[in-house]
């Protein structure tokens, strides 16, 4: 739009109005030359504050001789409409006398429009932020409640499975005990087939006992409070291996434990994990003439990965995804005894430490189990 400019004499009458000013005000200079501009375009404005308190800057300029700036006001156009303006009025001084005023003004409709838009946008953003904060708080509350529910439900499930496993032992003892007594004290009254049936009853009840023990251990692993301290894994593995060797002193076993292996974790849980992994290695190499078991570590993507490797029965990689399922076995009971819970237990322990576990194997060429603890 440009800048409108007009000049007034010392009485406030129009001397000059520039073309831009003519356009903005809707008057031609010839129409209004000599008219008092204040009366024409400024006073009696419904929007402008014409109260006695607010003096027209024009007067001030004429009196004081100093430039004044008004950042927001309204001028009336020829057609009666108002335009929002900002203006600067400066005195014209000739020989020390104030002979008039020059006023430059600018239409600030766009600025006002932009300001209004910005205000509106800010209100909307505030309203939306408040809404988001409210929704967030609601969501967090819901998550808290749901987590508490899940935790309770989990605890109840664990308590239930624990007490069920525990109580299942009692009748199992009876089954084992009395079938044993039958065999021992009445064995000679029974034929070979009857004795055979009884020993199968005994074997089954003992297997069930092992399953219950494994389940109880798995449940304990989940429920136990985690302590974190530095654990010497090499020493732990050595102790476990020594214990395993004692159970079968006749076996030829070569064990290689890397020295100085340690990790931050719960010592009791890590013991259970290594007991399971090394115990498995020990068990599944039982058919090898010379068993080879290794426990070591390697670096992968910046973290430490531990591994237990053996040269035993191995497994088919196509079943690798079943390795860690509870009660899942990749070998028949007649090949190797077991509960199918050991690896599920190790996985739970590893996960509680924030790590992961995976296995690689080849039938009859052995298996390696890798795990991280963070």
């Amino acid at each position, binding site marked *: 739009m440009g800048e409108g400019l007009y000049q007034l004499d010392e009485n406030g009458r129009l001397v000059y109005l520039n073309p831009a000013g003519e356009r903005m005000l809707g008057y031609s200079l010839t129409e209004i030359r000599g008219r008092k501009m204040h009366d024409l375009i400024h006073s009696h404005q419904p929007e402008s504050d014409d109260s006695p308190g607010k003096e027209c800057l024009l007067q001030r300029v004429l009196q004081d001789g100093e430039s004044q700036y008004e950042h927001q006001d309204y001028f009336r156009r020829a057609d009666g409409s108002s335009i929002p303006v900002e203006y600067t009025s400066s005195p014209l001084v000739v020989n020390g006398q104030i002979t008039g005023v020059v006023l430059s003004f600018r239409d600030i409709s766009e600025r006002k429009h932009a300001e209004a838009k910005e205000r509106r946008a800010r209100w909307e953003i505030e309203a939306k932020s408040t809404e988001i904060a409210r929704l967030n708080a609601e969501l967090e509350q819901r998550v808290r409640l749901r987590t508490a529910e899940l935790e309770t439900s989990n605890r109840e499930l664990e308590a239930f499975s624990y007490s069920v496993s*525990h109580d299942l*032992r*009692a*009748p*199992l*003892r*009876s089954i*084992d*005990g*009395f079938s*044993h*007594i039958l065999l021992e*004290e009445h064995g000679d009254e029974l034929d070979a087939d009857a004795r055979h049936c009884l020993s199968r009853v005994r074997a089954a*009840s*003992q297997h*069930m*006992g092992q399953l*219950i023990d494994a389940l*109880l251990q798995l449940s*304990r692993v989940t429920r136990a409070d985690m302590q974190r301290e530095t654990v010497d894994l090499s020493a732990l593995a050595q102790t476990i291996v020594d214990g395993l060797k004692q159970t079968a002193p006749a076996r030829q076993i070569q064990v290689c434990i890397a020295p100085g292996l340690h990790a931050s974790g719960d010592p009791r849980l890590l013991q259970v994990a290594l007991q399971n992994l090394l115990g498995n290695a020990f068990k599944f190499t039982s058919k090898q003439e010379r068993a080879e078991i290794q426990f070591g570590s390697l670096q992968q993507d910046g973290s430490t990965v531990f591994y237990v490797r053996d040269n035993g029965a191995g497994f088919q990689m196509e079943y690798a995804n079943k390795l860690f399922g509870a009660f899942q076995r990749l070998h028949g009971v007649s090949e190797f005894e077991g509960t199918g819970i050991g690896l599920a237990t190790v996985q739970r322990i590893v996960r509680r430490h924030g790590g992961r576990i995976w296995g690689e194997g080849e039938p009859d060429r052995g298996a390696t189990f890798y795990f991280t603890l963070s």
Partner: protein
Amino acid sequence: MKDNFILLVEDNPDHEALTIRALKRAGLANPVVVAHDGAEALDFLGAKGIHAGRDIDQLPRVVLLDLKLPRVDGLEVLQHLRADQRLQRIPVVVLTSSDEETDLVRSYRLGANSYIPKPVDFVQFVEATRQMGLFWLPTNEAPRGG
């Protein structure tokens, strides 16, 4: 009955029978008195209730105490025994169904003398009973049982 008997506190009749057989197998021929819950055990030891009229001075050589008992449970019986001056010195061997139960009893520090685990395998139980007998009933001269 001399002061030579074993007080077995056990509510499960199967386990009662198995324990008595295990004792016999372990070569312990001491007479066995059975109380079927904690209240009965305390009645017996105090010669009251259903055992009123028995000679209160006759005390068992050792108490085999199961933990899970109806009415008055094993821990309470243990507490009573240790609190009563007259009964304090009787050895109590607790029969526990799991390591956790053992830990629990230990943590209460109620003064059990020893623990026999109750494994599913009867043969193991006989062996554990035998070890218990060797320690707490050493002067047993009974003939070897079946």
